[in-house]
């Protein structure tokens, strides 16, 4: 069987888009081989061409895309030469695909069941009854609760996680030989993602389906794949077994990727992340020679910028190829991140204190008719009993998945909403009932925010300088126009952007640059507290590292308190001094970072830690997969908020009574389980000693 025929083989694949600006090569000389039963991961940052490859395999590239050269052979047959009818017979039957956004991928006006039934009806000409039978069976196979209800539902009536299971069921219905998964969990919450990943792993075991798994997340690739292809700017730069590539990477870009993600052991003071300098080149601005050259620390003029760099096998490890002329000369041990000793300012006095904060919303439709009939008001309890403090120069992370109330909390602190109950004390003054319009400019300047989405953090109509300048003026830092300009220039210096960005419009900036401007704007009024709402989650990993680093530096210099709102536990462990874990409006656990990341855990924290994929072969995790979805805040369960999904549920008490707060010093857990029992928990993450020499 050693000479088994590959299921899919791409050879010297070149894909271009043809626009009015001319030909844009999206994928260059791309090779890929998928053997039967094998799962191959393609990893890379946005714009590297990984999704283009997926759609090219399906021969679906829109009217502008075209395969310029090379072949895609499915079981030996060249797909680029197939007729539309031959392709149609392969699609959905031999090769199936799972997409990034399940909601958009399902027809909104057709019942889920009918969409599933189409697959066997078209490809195997079975009877309606049999198609129905099979669809229901497959819904059970992808472990959807109550398949009959889902069969009859419309896509919008089921949750995101369930939609993705439906899409997977649809892909599996014709028992394909190859399954292409294009970022299948990116749109989902971590604990839901863990369930899908679990399902994907079972599929390859149960059906022996070959898979191509496309992701930007190295951790997910490790959990699902056998081999990995790392892509950069349209090329594959490194290919090999997952363990081999993860432990002995031989391309500077792969190394750069690993150094910029917060793996366990990274620490913002002792072992900071290292960002990859520069930006991904646009397809028509790629340099001669190595595309990574301009961003590479090992770049050697005369060698790296001469002609095409071929893929070469790494000596001594078969199947491991790398596109680098210098890989053999580089001292990879020396390249590992070194220890550093930045001493952060010690935490000072308490700056922000949140006491018993509650925020309820009443949803009613405000129409005249509803008011006349006087009804239809429902209460959403977005925040319940929030209690915590933040000290000067400290980073407090607020962690939770969608619907946990972290964004509502940010709005209350910022004064965009007023609290229903409780206090938010900043510098000794309660702000909970003061909306931002009634706060004094100085107070407003003390409390600023960095936003999540780089694409709408800045007003597209105004120049960067005008936007930062407005803040400087508004907070009364400066009032003379010339001094304001000077101050804006200094702020641009602080966030390491060139001064001529003053005149640019936001659309001329990259995502990372926009986030830097957002940071400059937040720090313009010399704030005491900065609320950062997922400030890097929309950025590519290498850019994430640079922005995170910048945020920490400015924070250290100004002794600012940072409230870091995030769903990314790896980043939180790296960045935070203390952690607050939220679920459905409640703080379920809080303590120092070390306390929260080690037992005793709240059962939710435990599951969350297990769900986060970690791109490190030495990490062993306890396997906990939560069932079901996060309940809606409109209709929360009685008793403990987590009781509907809790694997450690005790019984009736969890369903009726709100749990007590168990305290272990400053470490607090909201749970019915006795403290003694909690203390007996095992750690979720264990780091095995490094193989070979340290």
């Amino acid at each position, binding site marked *: 069987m050693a000479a088994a025929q590959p299921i899919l083989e791409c050879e010297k694949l070149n894909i271009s888009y043809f626009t009015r600006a001319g030909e844009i090569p999206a994928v260059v000389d791309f090779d890929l081989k998928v053997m039967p039963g094998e799962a191959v991961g393609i990893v890379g940052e946005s714009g590297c061409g990984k999704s283009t490859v997926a759609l090219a395999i399906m021969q679906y590239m829109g009217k502008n895309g075209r395969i310029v050269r090379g072949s895609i052979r499915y079981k030996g047959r060249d797909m680029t030469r197939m007729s539309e009818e031959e392709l149609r017979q392969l699609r959905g039957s031999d090769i199936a695909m799972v997409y990034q956004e399940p909601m958009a991928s399902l027809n909104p006006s057709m019942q889920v069941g009918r969409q599933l039934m189409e697959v066997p009806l078209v490809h195997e000409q079975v009877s309606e009854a049999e198609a129905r039978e099979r669809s229901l069976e497959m819904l059970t196979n992808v472990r959807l609760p109550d398949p009959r209800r889902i069969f009859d539902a419309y896509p919008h009536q089921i949750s995101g996680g369930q939609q993705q299971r439906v899409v997977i069921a649809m892909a599996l219905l014709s028992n394909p030989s190859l399954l292409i998964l294009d970022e299948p969990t990116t749109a989902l919450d971590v604990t839901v993602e863990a369930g899908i990943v679990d399902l994907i792993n079972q599929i390859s075991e149960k059906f022996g389906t070959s898979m191509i798994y496309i992701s930007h997340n190295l951790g997910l690739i490790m959990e699902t794949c056998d081999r990995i292809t790392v892509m950069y700017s349209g090329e594959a730069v490194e290919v090999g077994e997952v363990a081999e590539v993860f432990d002995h990477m031989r391309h500077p870009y792969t190394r750069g990727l690993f150094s910029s993600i917060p793996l366990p052991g990274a620490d913002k003071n002792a072992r900071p992340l290292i960002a990859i300098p*520069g930006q991904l080149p646009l397809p028509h601005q790629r340099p001669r020679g190595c595309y990574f050259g301009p961003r590479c620390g090992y770049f050697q003029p005369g060698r790296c910028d001469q002609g095409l760099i071929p893929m070469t096998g790494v000596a001594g490890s078969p199947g491991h190829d790398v596109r680098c002329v210098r890989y053999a000369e580089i001292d990879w041990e020396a390249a590992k991140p070194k220890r550093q000793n930045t001493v952060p300012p010690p935490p000072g006095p308490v700056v922000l204190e949140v006491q018993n904060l509650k925020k309820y919303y009443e949803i009613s439709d*405000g129409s005249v008719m509803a008011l006349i009939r006087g009804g239809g008001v429902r209460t959403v309890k977005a925040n319940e009993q929030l209690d915590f403090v933040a000290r000067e120069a400290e980073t407090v992370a607020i962690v939770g998945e969608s619907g946990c109330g972290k964004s509502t909390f940010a709005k209350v602190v910022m004064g*965009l909403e007023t609290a229903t109950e409780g206090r938010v004390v900043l510098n000794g003054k309660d702000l909970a009932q003061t909306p931002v319009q009634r706060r004094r400019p100085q107070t407003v300047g003390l409390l600023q*925010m960095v936003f999540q989405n780089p694409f709408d953090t800045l007003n597209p109509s*105004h120049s960067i300088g005008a936007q930062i300048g407005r803040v400087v003026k508004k907070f009364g830092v400066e009032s003379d126009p010339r001094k304001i300009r000077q101050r804006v220039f200094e702020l*641009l210096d602080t966030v390491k952007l060139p001064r001529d960005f003053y005149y640019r419009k936001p659309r001329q900036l990259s995502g990372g640059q926009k986030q830097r401007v957002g940071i400059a704007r937040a720090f313009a009024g010399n704030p005491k507290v900065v609320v950062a709402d997922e400030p890097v989650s929309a950025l590519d990993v290498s850019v994430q590292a640079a922005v995170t680093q*910048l945020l920490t530096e400015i924070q250290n210099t100004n002794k600012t308190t940072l409230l870091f709102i995030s769903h990314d536990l790896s980043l939180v462990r790296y960045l935070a001094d203390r952690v607050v874990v939220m679920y459905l409006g409640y703080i379920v656990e809080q303590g120092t970072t070390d306390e929260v990341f080690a037992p005793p855990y709240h059962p939710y924290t435990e599951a969350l830690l297990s769900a986060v994929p970690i791109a490190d072969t030495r990490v062993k995790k306890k396997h906990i997969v939560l069932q079901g979805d996060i309940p809606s805040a409109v209709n929360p369960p009685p008793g403990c908020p987590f009781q509907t999904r809790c694997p450690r549920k005790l019984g009736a008490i969890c369903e009726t009574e709100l749990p007590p707060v168990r305290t272990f010093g400053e470490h607090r857990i909201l749970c019915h389980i006795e403290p003694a029992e909690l203390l007996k928990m095992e750690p979720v993450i264990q780091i095995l000693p490094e193989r070979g020499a340290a």
Partner: protein
Amino acid sequence: MATVESTAASATPAAPSRLGALLHAIGLLRESRIAMLGTFLVLFWVAMALLAPVLPLLDPNTPLEPFKGPGDLARDGETVFWLGTDHKGRDVLARLIWGSQRVLVWATLATAVAYVVGMLMGVAAGYLGGWWDEAISFVANVLLSFPVMVLYIVIISALGASGANIVLAVTFASAPGIMRIVRGLVLDLKTRDYIFAAQTRGEGAWWIMLVELLPNARGPLIVDACLRLGYTVITIAMLGFLGLGLPPPDPDWGAMIAEAVPTGAFALHAMVVPAMAVSSLVLGFNLLADGLREISLRD
């Protein structure tokens, strides 16, 4: 952390010129043939309207010789009626060009007034929400419940036919539609982070509505304004046709058609020419709008 983006120049850079941006916009327009045709038609009529006083035209209101065909010579053997004369013997070309001035001036004025009213209503309804939205939307719904022509007829027959009343009627008819578009755009825009950023630095409602929100709604609004200009041209000509427009004797495209129809058998040109003029001007605005939309979707 040596990043390419971090090379901070300590010198003070100079501001770039606005001319480049303008040239860029014109360049984009030239890429769409449809937009070019639209621009040409609109500019042609604008030029006619502007040049009306200096062009060597006959007096538009003096009856000369009735039922002359296009290109016919007058009795004096010198004067040419390039587009003929109507049943009263007035020169069609002169009436056409003076008519373009009239329709363009009133259409632009009426649309502009409708826009100011509609935008203020829309941005207030969308941003302030609550009772503001309820009240403004209700007013808009009431006005939109009239078939537009019925609304015009009711307003004009209650207030009488005059330029000011036409502006008022167009405002009543168009502002609700503009309000709905702006409201929709604002409802979307106000969830953007830069609006939260403005709120968290304590900006007032007026600043946010006028400085932060409206400039970002301009793309779809420019397209809509072009379409609406075209529609207002139709409206003014239609009112003229129905005898509810600007009072005679000054030339009015709609009235020209209405007057020429009964004698169409003798002077077909007198009714066809103004009909073509209205259609070409409206077509110009519509094509321009379509081209602009295409360009705005492109990048």
